[in-house]
């Protein structure tokens, strides 16, 4: 049997207190505590966050410490039932009410930060019976108030997939009518709207991360008969879509908009992936062992946000029952762990 010394070329140090600045992978025996310890990579986890004040399928932007929940469909017992413009801000602990948006709507998508966010599209209307119509509405939030911006060329709903910042974003595919017809049309915003190259599939519930000029899109579903879920993923450089590593299983409805084209996470797709987290490293998708706990029917792209692959925020959910609970993702990080406790 090999020893630690044979494997690592040195013995385990015996110390009376933990080293103040350990190296990654360092192992030591703390004689005071009688414990074998090491400084190693821990596991990523999802933990509980604050609870939304208004029960609705809000879209999320911002970060785990400065989040923004806006719009969405309000479900009883919150009222009035129907499309909403309710806005709440998150401080890493609790959600507090902010000023309403301008157009009441749901299945909206948003991006940006708590003080510079935009929200696009959705089904606009009020009340439990509607009527509802797909909207081009595009609003900017500056940390205090919502302002109407020039609407997108094409109205989209279904958490119309988008990623980027409030001033530079790309929106691909999505639903274009109340019958749920998916589109392959792409529209970009950088202060004004313009058309982009068509997405390789007419799809809805595609998930996205990254920026206008370096984005990753994955999964989704078409309206094709039978199994319509997609296992494809594409990178976008601001001009062209290029196929990248496929999903091991076709899936749809993952939360995204977290991280970059080379380091991002996606979580909580439609069944059976409700509790699944995927990592993307710029080449391939891999299952992350961290699992969100709540049985959200699917998170949906518009209901998850973060600025890095190591920190994400999920709140509400698509479908019924909609939740008010928040979960926060914390990526794996180096930490002191106890291996043996005498």
């Amino acid at each position, binding site marked *: 049997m090999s020893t630690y010394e044979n494997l690592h070329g040195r013995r385990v140090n015996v110390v009376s207190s933990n080293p103040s600045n350990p190296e990654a992978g360092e192992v030591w025996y703390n004689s005071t505590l009688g414990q074998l310890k090491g400084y190693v990579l821990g596991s990523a986890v999802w933990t509980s966050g604050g609870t939304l004040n208004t029960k609705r399928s809000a879209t999320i932007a911002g970060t785990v410490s400065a989040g923004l929940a806006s719009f969405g469909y309000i479900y009883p017992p919150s009222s009035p039932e129907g499309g909403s413009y309710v806005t709440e801000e998150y401080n890493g602990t609790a959600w507090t009410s902010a000023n309403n948006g301008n157009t009441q709507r749901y299945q909206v998508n948003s991006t940006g930060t708590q003080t510079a966010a935009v929200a696009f599209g959705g089904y606009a209307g009020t009340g439990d019976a509607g009527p509802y119509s797909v909207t081009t509405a595009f609003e900017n939030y500056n940390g205090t108030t919502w302002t109407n911006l020039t609407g997108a060329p094409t109205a989209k709903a279904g958490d119309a997939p988008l990623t980027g910042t409030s001033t530079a974003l790309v929106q691909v595919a999505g639903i274009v009518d109340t019958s749920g017809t998916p589109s392959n049309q792409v529209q970009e915003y950088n202060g004004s709207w313009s058309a982009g190259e068509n997405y390789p599939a007419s799809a809805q519930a595609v998930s996205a991360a990254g920026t206008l000029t370096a984005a990753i899109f994955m999964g989704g579903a078409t309206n094709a008969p039978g199994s319509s879920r997609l296992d494809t993923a594409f990178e976008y450089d601001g001009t062209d879509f290029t196929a990248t590593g496929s999903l091991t299983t076709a899936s749809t409805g993952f939360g995204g908009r977290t991280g970059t084209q080379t380091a991002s996470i996606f979580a909580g797709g439609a069944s059976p992936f409700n509790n699944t987290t995927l990592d993307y490293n710029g080449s391939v998708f891999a299952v992350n062992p961290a699992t969100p706990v709540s049985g959200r029917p699917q998170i949906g792209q518009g209901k998850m946000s973060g600025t890095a692959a190591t920190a994400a925020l999920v709140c509400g959910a698509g479908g*019924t029952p909609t939740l008010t609970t928040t979960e926060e993702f914390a990526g794996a990080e180096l930490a002191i762990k106890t291996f043996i406790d005498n």
Partner: protein
Amino acid sequence: MENFLYGVAENTGKGFFTAEDRRNFFLRGYPADVWVVGNNPKGALWVADKGVFKTKSEAQALVDAEVQAAQTAWDAQSDEEKARPGNNRPTDITLP
């Protein structure tokens, strides 16, 4: 020994389940504030601290009642409301 414990606890928000909890035991949330927890000492302590234990059948009955109530409410909607995008009929849930 059974793989899971069952309990009812209201999610109180931040700190309700922590990173340490997630690393110590399996945890899944379901309608009616039902939680399925890995059957180990730390999982048992969490249920005892946060809520009350239920048997699997008791927990399943609570989930069923909540889902059936949501299904009944959905069924009572007009055809126009049922056809509203994203308004899917709640599906049955079977606890592990």
